[in-house]
């Protein structure tokens, strides 16, 4: 190695190659650039013209210089120049490199590896022997000093561990040390009880030098739940300046993708060694959190995993359709809500919305039937681990669900009707509960004496019934049954969730039973006694860098170890799963704090960064490459080739290659047009004739409304069910054709939302001349297919006192082109009776979501834009009368859609007037 100032060369003899440069100069000068051959008819005009100058037959001097510089750079590069060569006075004797190797090392581990590497290379150059020991992975015997080169091979495989050194093993190892050696201690910067003893022992064998990283060590304590907020304590070992750290909550989104769910900035005061980060999150989001991280710190200490302790279970409550006219004093959900509110997050809403939130538990109180799509989704949810709890009730007892075949969403088959006991009209006493069997989850609960069952649904005797019963009455009839489905389970209480059928919901037992079913469980912290004898399976474990990995291959851990909550080689930090809960073991246990290691004054402490030798070879080669590239362009320019179209295009393309983001313009015109006025809509079937007829029909009806009523609709529109928003239209006319496509799943969801939120669809099979309603015309069959996925309530033919008969005109017939009387609407509740002296029943229900018939109303309503009817109806004056009645029906229908039961409420007017006059 020859030194020139700060630069040295490893293979200086290669520099002799620079001597060939003058020869190259001569050679390159003699070779001019190759000519281009061009076809050119004007050559005759060129003949005899000579070049003015003769300079370009030789390479220009600047191009030559460029090439020579490139070659000189390459030669110099290969002669191995080194910047800042390390030249220190060698010391000899064995060298022990001691690494803490804990999680606190992890955030700048590559730097530490570099430092070890540099120390070992120097030791190798000086011919010293060396040994490398990591305190978290102690060798069984005293260090064996080997050639430093050999030791260096181990360095790259060195990895820190996510736990602190084991004190006992460390003491044993310290005792085994023999001989004289110097020590480099790569410290992780944290104070530990074992440190002074080890330092004292090492000093008896030789000098000790410590290396410490200047970057601060940060840590996170286990997250706590306080007043519905999650707080995470951030710790630091070095105090003195005010700093900010960002703590991020990470979890899975509904699609199962890991995401940053939230982040908070925690600020350390100048002297504070800890601070807290507070997360105010909705419980849905909070339950998704799997861990918290300090952003930008790659260390297991900067990660804290969450377990069940942070979660509140989400419980969805759904009641059956409430279709009674009486005031609702006995809400089926009241007792459930009271029992669950203190411990669980309650969710309400439609089943579709609820399933999207993916709750742990869904409780259906007296819900009999679900649509096929809902049932499918529900079953999938149960099989993925959901708990479905159903309560019986009058609706369930009256329905045919699980009667003949066992419903997938019911644990047992049911007998017709159920039974009533202990009432005025029945024999026997109200039944009491039998003690819970040992196999039941309710085993051990004391049964209050006053719990009495007066009515229940009965399970059909069955070979599987016995094992599904988890609670029964004193006479042996099942009260609570359960079955598993996939990884979830389905539980049926054979009584109501309110106090109608039993006093169970009134008792404390009800709350305890829900708790035992893990409906409302709020796990308490595990106690040492509770953990003894249990076995925990590691699910995910952390490495020192804070990365989670699956722990399928790791052995189970005893409860005693879990109770200490101190991570070690046999119990890595991570998530441990027990029988019914999971526990997170984090690197920083309990309320531990981080303290900076303090070294005695006589120990030299160095930072990690050292002046490294810089090899210049790569840089020089890169420079040579740039020069050669420049030379290529210069040569091209000289020979006139640079103006070639392909080259120019390529270069231009490289510079102009840009991705222009396409702004997607949202067209709101449809929404504005549809909502500016009341607008009747029809479903575009794809059959042009029928669509034109629908359009003309609604146009005629709109005109009639405009003339006769205060409804002033705009020109009707055809809507595409798949693409268009339905919520803008109060009324949709849907002519059924046999060739129609079935709506897609998303469209069904949209239609159901539309029907539930007060929209009305008039289904018209247009076949009343050929078929009776429900009989098998192709359109009728298509309607049945379409309606299967729709949330359509029970129907009945329009009764004489239906609101549609008197919203504007008094009508009893609802003809269109055909005068069939088969027009069906939502049926009235069965328990409403005609009061004496009243012309019609007192029905204060909402708008019927569907009207179904086959009278081809659009044809009867249809007019052209001048108002002339398009389709002949009937014969003569009778036909015209039929058209008039059809129009009146249309007016009544739209009035009903827009005003609801206003006309029905008019019945109370005399009573109200009378009360006012008093």
């Amino acid at each position: 190695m020859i030194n020139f100032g700060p630069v040295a060369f490893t293979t200086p003899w290669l520099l002799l190659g620079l001597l060939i440069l003058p020869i190259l100069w001569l050679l390159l000068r003699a070779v001019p650039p190759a000519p281009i051959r061009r076809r050119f008819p004007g050559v005759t005009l060129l003949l005899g013209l000579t070049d003015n100058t003769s300079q370009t037959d030789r390479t220009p001097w600047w191009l030559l210089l460029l090439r020579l510089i490139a070659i000189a750079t390459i030669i110099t590069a290969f002669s191995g120049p080194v910047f800042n060569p390390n030249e220190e006075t060698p010391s000899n004797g064995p060298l022990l490199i001691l690494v803490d190797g804990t999680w606190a090392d992890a955030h700048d581990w590559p730097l530490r590896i570099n430092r070890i590497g540099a120390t070992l290379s120097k030791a190798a150059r000086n011919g010293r022997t060396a040994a490398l020991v990591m305190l978290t992975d102690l060798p069984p015997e005293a260090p064996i000093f080997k050639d430093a080169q050999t030791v260096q091979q181990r360095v790259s495989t060195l990895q820190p561990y996510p736990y602190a050194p084991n004190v006992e093993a460390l003491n044993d190892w310290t005792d085994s040390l023999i001989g004289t050696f110097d020590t480099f201690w790569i410290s992780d910067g944290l104070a530990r009880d074992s440190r002074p003893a080890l330092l004292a022992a090492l000093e008896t064998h030789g000098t000790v030098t410590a290396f410490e990283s200047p970057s601060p060590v940060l840590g996170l304590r286990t997250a706590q739940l306080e007043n519905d907020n999650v707080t995470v304590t951030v710790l630091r070992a070095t105090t003195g300046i005010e700093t900010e750290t960002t703590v991020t909550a990470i979890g899975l989104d509904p699609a199962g993708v890991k995401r940053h769910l939230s982040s908070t900035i925690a600020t350390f005061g100048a002297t504070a060694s800890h601070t807290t980060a507070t997360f105010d999150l909705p419980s849905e989001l909070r339950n998704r959190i799997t861990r918290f991280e300090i952003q930008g710190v790659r260390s297991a200490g900067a990660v804290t995993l969450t377990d069940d302790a942070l979660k509140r279970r989400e419980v969805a409550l759904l009641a059956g359709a409430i279709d009674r006219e009486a005031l609702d004093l006995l809400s089926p959900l009241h007792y459930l809500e009271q029992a669950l509110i203190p411990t669980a997050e309650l969710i309400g809403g439609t089943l579709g919305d609820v399933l999207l939130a993916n709750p742990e538990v869904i409780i259906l109180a007296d819900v009999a039937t679900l649509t096929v799509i809902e049932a499918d989704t529900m079953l999938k949810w149960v099989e993925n681990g959901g708990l479905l709890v159903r309560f019986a009730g009058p609706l369930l007892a009256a329905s045919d669900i699980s009667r003949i075949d066992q419903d997938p969403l019911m644990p047992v088959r049911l007998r017709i009707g159920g039974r009533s006991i202990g009432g005025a009209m029945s024999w026997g006493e109200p039944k009491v509960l039998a003690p819970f069997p040992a196999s039941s989850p309710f085993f051990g609960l004391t049964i209050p004496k006053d719990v009495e069952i007066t009515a229940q649904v009965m399970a059909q005797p069955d070979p599987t019934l016995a094992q599904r019963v988890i609670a029964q009455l004193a006479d042996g009839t099942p009260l609570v049954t359960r079955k598993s489905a996939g990884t979830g389970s389905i539980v049926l209480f054979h009584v109501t969730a309110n106090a109608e059928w039993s006093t169970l919901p009134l008792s404390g037992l009800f709350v305890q039973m829900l708790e035992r079913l893990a409906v409302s469980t709020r796990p308490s912290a595990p106690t040492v006694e509770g953990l003894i004898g249990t076995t925990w399976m590691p699910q995910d474990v952390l490495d020192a860098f804070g990365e989670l990995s699956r722990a399928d291959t790791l052995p189970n851990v005893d409860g005693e170890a879990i109770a200490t909550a101190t991570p070690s080689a046999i119990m890595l930090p991570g998530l441990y799963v027990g029988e019914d809960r999971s526990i997170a073991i984090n690197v920083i246990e309990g309320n531990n704090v981080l303290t900076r290691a303090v070294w005695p004054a006589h120990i030299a402490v160095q930072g990690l960064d050292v002046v490294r030798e810089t090899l210049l070879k790569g840089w020089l080669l890169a420079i040579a490459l740039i020069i050669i590239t420049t030379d290529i362009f210069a040569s091209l320019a000289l020979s006139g080739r640079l103006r070639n179209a392909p080259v120019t295009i390529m270069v231009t393309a490289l510079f102009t290659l840009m991705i222009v983001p396409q702004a997607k313009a949202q067209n709101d015109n449809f929404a504005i047009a549809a909502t500016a006025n009341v607008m009747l809509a029809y479903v575009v079937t794809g059959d042009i004739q029928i669509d034109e007829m629908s359009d003309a029909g609604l146009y005629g009806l709109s005109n009639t409304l405009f003339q006769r009523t205060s409804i002033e609709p705009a020109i009707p529109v055809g809507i595409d069910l798949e693409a268009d928003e339905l919520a803008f239209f109060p009324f949709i006319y849907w002519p059924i054709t046999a060739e129609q496509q079935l709506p897609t799943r998303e469209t069904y969801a949209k239609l159901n939302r539309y029907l539930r939120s007060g929209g009305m669809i008039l289904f018209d099979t247009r076949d009343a001349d050929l078929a009776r309603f429900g009989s098998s015309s192709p359109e009728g069959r298509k309607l049945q297919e379409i309606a299967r996925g729709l949330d359509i309530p029970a129907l009945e033919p329009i009764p004489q006192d239906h609101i549609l008969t008197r919203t504007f005109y008094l009508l009893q017939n609802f003809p269109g082109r055909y005068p069939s009387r088969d027009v069906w609407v939502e049926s009235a509740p069965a328990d409403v009776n005609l009061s004496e002296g009243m012309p019609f029943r007192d029905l204060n229900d909402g708008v019927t979501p569907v009207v179904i018939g086959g009278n081809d109303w659009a044809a009867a309503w249809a007019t052209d834009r001048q108002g002339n009817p398009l389709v002949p109806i009937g014969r003569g004056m009778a036909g015209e009368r039929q058209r008039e009645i059809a129009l009146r029906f249309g007016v009544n229908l739209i009035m009903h859609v827009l005003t609801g039961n206003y006309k029905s409420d008019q019945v109370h007017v005399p009573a109200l007037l009378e009360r006012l006059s008093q």
Partner: protein
Amino acid sequence: MMEAPLSLRLGAETLTAPFPPLLAEAEHLAEAVIVGDHGRRRAGMGDTFWQYRAAQNHDEIRSIDWRRSARSDAQFIQDKEWQIAQTILMWVDQSASMSFTSLKNGTTKRARARTLALATAILLLRGGERVGLTGNQLPPRRGEVQVTQMATMLSKDNTEDFGTPDATGMLSNSRTLLVSDFMGNLAGIETAMARAADSNVRGAMIQILDPAEEAFPFDGRTIFESMSGTIQHETLKARDLRDRYLDRLAHRKDRLASLASQAGWQFHTHHTSTPAASALLWIYTALERRA
């Protein structure tokens, strides 16, 4: 480049469409004039009635139409419609140098020359003139068939480097159209022009040039070759030659223009990058011009 006669004719017909029938002015020398049946829409020699006009002093008495004059006090003369056909011969350079192009759309000088010549022929034939090719290749005839035959003849390429105008077969007192890049030896052109002038042939020369030949956009060390590769010229710095080349080109154009004006011809330079219609318009007016 062999161009199918059909597509050549199609291109020429398209170009012709906007023009009124082009009629070359007939020279009044008796030998060359063959009276045709196509009226010139003006009074002159012919068989068909054109108009009555009042007799002037210079009119011979025998030419007075007495039948018409008897119906009034003045004397009238019956004019006949002028019916004369002219003979136009064409020479189109088919040589290799005409196949050069520097354009993106690949329009060669040759293609442009052929289209122009055939378009002119179609116009003339529509006007009742007689059109042919020089060099006794295609004697002047009239009628649609001549267009087809001409298209066939014009579709034949020539392999020699530069074309020399063929003055044989030129009828005296006829008209001639020469289409070429005139890059070849000037002596040949001069000879042909001299022969043409001897037999009192008038006409037009149109020089078709590529934009590259006008701009000389070359640079660096280059060997220039003629299209067949027989003539070569090497330069080390093509850019230096540009000015001198352009001088020579301008000189040549001047020479051609003076040749033309001496013989009473018209001369024009057309570039393949400009629309063909402008060149056709020029030919139209050049052939229309009275000598």
